[in-house]
């Protein structure tokens, strides 16, 4: 008897799951979704659907539809495809600047609530007028935004690979804001642009390229961006090998500790690395340079513009202290040169 009850339970459980069945061939796999608004405030959704042909070549289909909500716009696309839109494999979400400036909260809301969609994709702000245009380019050139993003982060440091769910977590913390990657079209080529910084859910503006790199150094401990100081004779160019940034509170002041190891990649004639003392001098020059830049960056965004992209307010919140009107901070930079690339070893 027990056996039959057990079997019955199993069957009940299984048939509950049965309506979840979806044949793979009935799915339209969406890899890129773009969202725009028109003049009347309606959403325009543009999707890139990937399908393979028989020889296993990737081919993409573009579809577009409007609706008065995101859900509606995406639903309306279904009228144009024979398959069901499948958002679980979404890699890239591009929103237009207009949407970003008026707030991304309802977009985030949609993706959190839709149980089909995963939140492990990357959010971009379109520097072009519409996201649709960028997607057309993506589809035409068959580029993968994901790969571009990864290599930008890895080798340049001007972009970061934070998924939407990581962004959401960051926004939902008290006193913490996000930066989002941007993309645009330059002379018929897609490129990854500077970071766009947000306050709460609304985009405020773009950083410069150097600032984007600085943000990523401070925020995600990225490795491998290149630092440059001096001109011609005094030129020093180094590549960051390891990077450890810590934020802390000390005497009601924010403490920024930066520990870096760098490799020298280029030096001018006047720079000598022949003895330990001289290497130390070079390290000092670099430390001062980095310190200046960090201080500039923090002053500009954290203090003047008041965006919490480095999460200073969150530091105070966690210690249950009030965030001071004029926040003060200390920067300690420690740089050591790991590899000079010299022909002769100095020791």
């Amino acid at each position: 008897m027990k056996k039959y009850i057990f079997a019955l339970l199993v069957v009940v459980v299984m048939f509950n799951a049965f309506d979840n069945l979806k044949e793979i061939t009935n799915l339209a796999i969406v890899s890129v979704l773009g969202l725009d608004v028109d003049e009347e405030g309606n959403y325009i959704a543009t999707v890139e659907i990937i399908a393979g042909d028989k020889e296993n070549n990737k081919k993409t289909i573009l579809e577009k539809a409007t609706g008065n909500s995101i859900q509606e716009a995406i639903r309306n696309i279904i009228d144009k495809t024979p398959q069901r839109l499948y958002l679980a494999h979404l890699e890239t979400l591009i929103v237009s600047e207009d949407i970003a400036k008026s707030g991304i909260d309802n977009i985030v809301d949609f993706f959190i609530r839709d149980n089909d969609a995963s939140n492990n994709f990357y959010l971009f702000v379109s520097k072009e007028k519409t996201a649709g245009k960028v997607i057309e380019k993506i589809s035409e050139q068959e580029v993968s935004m994901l790969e571009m993003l990864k290599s930008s982060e890895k080798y340049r440091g001007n972009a970061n690979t934070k998924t939407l769910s990581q962004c959401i977590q960051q926004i939902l913390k008290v006193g913490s804001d996000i930066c989002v990657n941007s993309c645009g079209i330059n002379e018929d080529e897609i490129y990854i642009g500077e970071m766009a910084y947000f306050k709460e859910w609304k985009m405020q503006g773009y950083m410069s390229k150097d600032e984007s790199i600085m943000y990523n150094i401070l925020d995600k401990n990225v490795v491998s961006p290149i630092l440059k100081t001096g001109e011609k004779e005094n030129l020093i160019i180094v590549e960051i090998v390891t990077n450890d940034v810590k934020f802390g509170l000390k005497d009601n002041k924010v403490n920024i500790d930066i520990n870096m190891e760098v490799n020298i990649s280029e030096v001018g004639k006047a720079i000598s690395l022949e003895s330990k003392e001289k290497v130390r001098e070079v390290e000092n020059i670099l430390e001062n340079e980095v310190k200046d830049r960090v201080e500039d960056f923090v002053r500009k965004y954290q203090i003047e513009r008041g965006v919490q992209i480095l999460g200073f307010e969150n530091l105070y919140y966690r210690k249950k202290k009030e965030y001071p009107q004029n926040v003060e901070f200390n920067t300690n930079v420690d740089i050591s040169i790991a590899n000079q690339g010299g022909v002769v070893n100095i020791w």
Partner: protein
Amino acid sequence: MNKIVEDIKERAKNSSDVFFREVAYKDKRVYLILSDAMVNTEVVSNFVVRSINEILRNTQTDKELDLKSKIEKRLNGDNINFENEIAISKIKKIDISKEDIFKYIFSGFVVIVYEQEVYIVEAKQNNSRSIMEPSTDSSVRGSRDSFVENIMQNLALIRNRIKNEKLLYKEQEIGRRTKTKCAIMYIEDIAKPELVNFIEEKLNGIDIDGILDVNYLQEFIEKENDSSFPVTITTQRPDLVSYYLLEGRVIILVNNSPYALVLPAFFDDFINSVDDLYQKSKNVTITRIIRYISMLLTILVPALYLSLITFDQETIPTKLLISISSQRESVPFPAVVEATMMMLAFEILKESDMRANNISGNTLSIVGALILGEAAVSAGIVSPIMIIVVAITTISGMLFSDINVINAFRRWRIIFMIFASLCGLVGMGIATVIFVASLVSTYSTYLPFTYPVAPLDITESMKNLFTRIRIPKDKTRQKILTNNLTKGR
């Protein structure tokens, strides 16, 4: 005519191969009864008949004794002593009222009836084939001999390896009609007495008309056990059997079956192969891990494929998903139907390949490879990825030698497929619970089948589960099998 002979003649009147012969001298008559098929006629005429003739007539040429008295002495029923005078080593006087005479006749004995006395003389024809390489448990470095149908030859193969008087051979007859010789073997001071008793009791309890193969006994011993996994090891290899004997297990041999039954069996015995003993222990670890992986593969791959492409597509990497999706585009069936079709086609092919003779077997494999391969894909009936799934499943299953294990894996593969096709990965989770529950509630004899994992025996698992301990370092036997723990004693 002799009454005993009359009686035998009456009982065997419809068996034309039972042959009667009378050797007579004066009024004394000696009767020979034998089965044509079973005896070696040369032995009968050269040794049995001649010996009897000599017993009866030799006295004529004997000049020293008084002829008459000698004949009389010889022919006096009490004094004719066949046991001493026939030139064959195996001769025995039997009591006809207690024993079935036909058992001896059909075992290749010559029955000699003289007045009220019955003797049997062995004149067996050697019907067994010569020792060949094992056909199932093949090994790279192990010995090349394997058991044959003749139980004595099998015994010899084992005795060759273990020359110890403590290795017991206890023979008994099972089967009311077949009277098959079955024997249990164990090493007296290693095997646990309770295990031996358990098995002996099982054998004694068997009441059946015939035992034709060792599998019959297997089923009697597994009686209470409805697990799909075999709880006895069947092997053709005398070296493996000797290894098990030294561990303290009990062997059952059955005449006419080229397999030995080893009791008890644990799950890892089926995963690990005899070859592991003959290879370097360090490298065996990788081999064993591969075997465990392929066990999982052969059970799980079709179910995993089904649940991934019908329920849990989000877990597949995007590129693979696109590739699978484009491959499946031309297939008109749902994935479940496609998988069922292919697994069925494959099982049919496997079964027919096993049954077919060599000549048609070749044709079969070509046709099968075509059907299951290129043609089915280009006809758009199945997708290439399904072929890969079937191939991985099959190849992984080939690592195991015991047919019962392969079939058990197949059974679980189907169960997993059913669950996966109903609710994807969740279903596989449910099936895993059932699988593990069924496995750990299996017993071989009275010992847990999943030993040494459940119940956990850490020393034994460290020694012999994924790794194989080096032979000089392995100084103890398994606690579960023996009370005599120190090796070398």
